[in-house]
C-alpha cells in the first residue's frame, strides 16, 4: 500500500492550510460556523467520501484523512469527524441516497447519535418514535440530522424536531463539545440496519481519528521545537540543551511512525469493505499507536514550555485536552490492543 501523500493530497493540504491558518485561535465556543461553511460549500471536503452520483467528490477516506490531519493541526472546531467521516460512512453502508446529497452540497450536517466513548446507547422504538438517552455525543450540537441506532435499525431524526433535547455538557475538550441527547417519542425515519452501518462508521472513525491525532502531535512537536529554538535560558536557546534535544528527537521518531501508521489505516479503510478484518486491524493499530503518541507530544509541549505551557492563555492545553479525549473516545489504546490480539489470534492468558 502506498503510504505517501499524493500530489492531489498535497494540493488539498495547501488549500486547507490557507483557509484554516487564518481562522485559528478562537475555539472557545466549540463551533466555527463560518469555517464549516467554507469547508463544506467552498472546498467541498464534507463530500469527499460521497460518490459522485450522489453529488460528492467520489474520493476516498484517504483524502478525508488528510482533512482530519489538518483539522487536528489547527484544532478547528468543526464537526468533520462526526458528519463527513462517521455519519457519511454509516449512511453509505446503510444504502442512503436521501441525506448524502444534502451533506455533499453543505445544506445538511449530520451526526451519528452514539456516545463518543463507551457502548452505544439504549434507545427504544415505539410506534415509529424513538425514546432514550445518549450521553456525551460528539459533533451533535451543530447537526441538523441525528442518525440514531435503535432496535437494530438506523433512524434519521431531525435534530431540532419534536421530542429531541440536546443538552451541552462541560467537555474536557472545549474544541469538540459534547452533548447529552434525550429522545422522548421523537419521530424517526428508518434508513437501514444499524449494525453494519455502525461498525463501518466506528472503524472508519477510529482509522481517521489517527490522522487527527497525527495533526495534533505534529502541531505540538513543531510548536515545541520552535519554542526551544528561541527561548533563551542560561544564555542559550533551551533547544541547545541535549536532554531537550533527545526528548524532542524521541517525539519526532514517534510522530514519524504515527504518519506511517495513520496513512496505512486511511488506506486500509478506503477499500471496498470498510469493516473487514484488515481495515479493523489497521484501525485498531492506528488507535493503539497514534493516540498515545499525540498525548505524549502534547505533554512534552506543556512541559517544555515550562510555566507558560501551563497557562490558559497558551494553546498547548487545548491540544493536550484534545489528545487525551481522542485517546479515550473511540476506545483506549488498551482496548484497541485487546481487539488487535483477537484479530491476530493471540489469545490472552487462560484461554486455550
Amino acid at each position: 500500500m502506498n503510504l505517501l501523500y499524493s500530489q492531489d493530497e498535497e494540493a488539498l493540504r495547501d488549500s486547507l492550510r490557507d483557509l484554516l491558518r487564518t481562522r485559528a485561535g478562537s475555539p472557545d465556543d466549540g463551533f466555527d460556523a463560518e469555517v464549516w461553511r467554507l469547508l463544506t460549500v467552498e472546498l467541498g471536503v464534507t463530500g469527499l467520501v460521497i460518490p459522485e452520483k450522489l453529488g460528492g467528490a467520489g474520493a476516498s477516506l484517504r483524502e478525508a484523512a488528510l482533512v482530519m490531519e489538518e483539522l487536528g493541526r489547527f484544532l478547528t472546531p468543526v464537526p468533520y469527524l462526526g458528519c463527513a467521516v462517521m455519519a457519511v460512512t454509516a449512511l453509505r453502508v446503510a444504502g442512503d441516497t436521501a441525506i448524502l446529497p444534502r451533506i455533499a452540497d453543505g445544506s445538511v450536517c449530520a451526526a451519528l447519535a452514539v456516545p463518543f466513548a463507551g457502548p452505544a446507547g439504549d434507545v427504544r422504538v415505539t410506534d415509529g418514535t424513538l425514546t432514550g438517552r445518549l450521553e456525551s455525543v460528539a459533533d451533535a450540537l451543530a447537526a441538523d440530522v441525528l442518525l440514531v441506532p435503535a432496535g437494530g435499525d438506523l433512524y434519521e431524526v431531525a435534530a431540532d424536531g419534536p421530542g429531541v433535547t440536546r443538552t451541552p455538557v462541560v467537555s474536557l475538550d472545549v474544541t469538540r463539545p459534547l452533548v447529552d441527547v434525550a429522545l422522548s417519542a421523537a419521530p424517526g425515519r428508518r434508513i437501514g440496519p444499524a449494525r453494519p452501518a455502525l461498525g463501518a462508521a466506528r472503524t472508519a472513525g477510529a482509522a481517521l481519528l489517527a490522522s487527527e491525532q497525527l495533526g495534533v502531535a505534529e502541531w505540538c512537536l513543531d510548536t515545541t521545537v520552535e519554542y526551544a529554538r528561541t527561548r533563551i535560558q542560561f544564555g542559550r536557546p533551551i533547544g541547545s540543551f541535549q536532554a531537550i534535544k533527545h526528548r524532542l528527537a524521541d517525539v519526532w521518531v514517534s510522530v514519524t511512525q504515527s504518519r506511517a501508521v495513520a496513512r496505512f489505516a486511511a488506506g486500509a479503510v478506503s477499500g471496498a469493505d470498510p469493516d473487514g478484518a484488515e481495515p479493523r486491524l489497521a484501525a485498531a493499530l492506528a488507535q493503539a499507536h497514534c493516540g498515545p503518541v499525540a498525548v505524549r507530544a502534547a505533554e512534552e509541549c506543556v512541559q517544555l514550555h515550562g510555566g507558560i505551557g501551563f497557562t490558559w492563555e497558551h494553546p498547548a492545553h487545548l491540544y493536550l485536552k484534545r489528545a487525551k479525549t481522542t485517546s479515550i473516545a473511540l476506545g483506549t489504546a488498551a482496548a484497541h490492543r485487546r481487539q488487535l490480539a483477537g484479530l491476530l489470534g493471540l489469545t490472552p492468558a487462560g484461554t486455550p
Partner: protein
Amino acid sequence: MTDVRELARAFRASVPTDDPVEFLRARFDAGLAWVHYPAGLGGLGLPREQQAIVDEELAGTPSNDPRRIGIGLGMAAPTVLRHGTPEQRRRFLRPLWTGEELWCQLFSEPGAGSDLAGLATRAVRDGDGWRVTGQKVWTSMAHRARWAILLARTDPDLPKHRGLTYFVCDMTAPGVDVRPLRQLTGEAEFNEVFLTDVFLPDDLRLGAVGEGWAVARTTLMNERVSIGGGSLPRGGGLIGMLTSLWTDRPDVRTAAAHDEMMRLWVAAEAARLTGVRARQQLAAGDPGPEGSAVKLAFAELAQRITGLELELRGAEGLRHDDWTMRHGEAVDFEGRSPTYRWLRAKGTSIEGGTSEILRNIIAERVLGLPAEPRTDTTVPWRELPR
C-alpha cells in the same frame, strides 16, 4: 536540657484558647512556635525534631492553616532569620507565624523561569530607598499577601548572579498591581505581579546590596526541603483514589489495567518509603539529597496515576466538572473531578523547580558530574542574549 514536653504542657494549662490569634501570639512568645528558632523569635534554640513533641502536646489548640502561611513559613522565615537584621527579625517573624501577615514570593519572571538568576526586574537607588520596576509571575497568594520576598537587579553591569539584591516588598505600596493568572485547569492559583516604580525604603533590603543570590539560595534550599515533605499512609493520596475506583467499580477493571495499576502502586509505595527514609535521615541530623528524588517521583506518579484514571473511566473522562475562572488558593487533588486532577498534575513537574532542573541538580551536585560549558556567568548581565 529543656524539657519541651513539660513546657508545652505548662503552656497549655496556663493560656486560654478563646481567641485564636491571642493564643498563637502567646505560643510564639513562649518559644513554642518553632522550637529550633532562637529564643525571643518564637523558639528555644532546640533541635528541630523536638517540635513534634510540642505539636503533639498542643494538638487541638488553635493553629495556622499551613496552606495559607506556607510561603512565609517555608521560604520567608528562614531567610529573614538567617539574613535579616535584628529589627527585621522582630518586625516580621511573629505576625508571619501567627498568620496575621501573609507572604508571597516575587522571584520568577516571564523571561526568567528555570534561569532565575537572569531576572530583569530593576531596583534603582532613590534617596534612602529603592524604586522597583518589573514583572513577576507564578506568585501564589499575592492577592492576599501583606509582604513579599523579592529578588531584583541592582547592577546590570555585573555578571548575572552578582548584580542581584534581595528585598522584602510591601504589597500595599503604590505601583504594585496583582492580576490573576489563569491556568489550564481554568482557575487562577497564581498571579502575575506588575511592579511600576514601587518605592521600598532601604530597611526593607534583606542582606547586602549585590548579595541577593546568596540570600535567595537560603530561600530556595528551604523550598526544596518543604516540597514533598508530607507523609502519607501506605496506599494513600492519588494512588488511593485509583485503587478505590478499582475496588468500587468492577466495570472499569481490565486485565491490562490491573498490571498498570499495580506498577503504579509499587512506584507510589517505593516513592513513599523513600520519603519516609529521607525524613528519618533528616531527624537523625543527616539530611541527604533524597528530597529531590521524592519530588521528581511524585510529579511523574501524579501524572501517570491521574492519566490512567481517565482511561479507566472512559466516557466519564471526557467530561469536566467546571471551567469557571476562580481564584484557587491551594491545590485540591481530592475535592475536584478526575479531569481536574489530571490537568493539575501537569504542573507538578514545573512548579518549584522543573523536573529538568532537578535532574541537573542531582547530576551535578549529587553525582558530581561535570557542569556543561557555560557562557552566561562571566559576562555582564546587560550583554546576555535574552
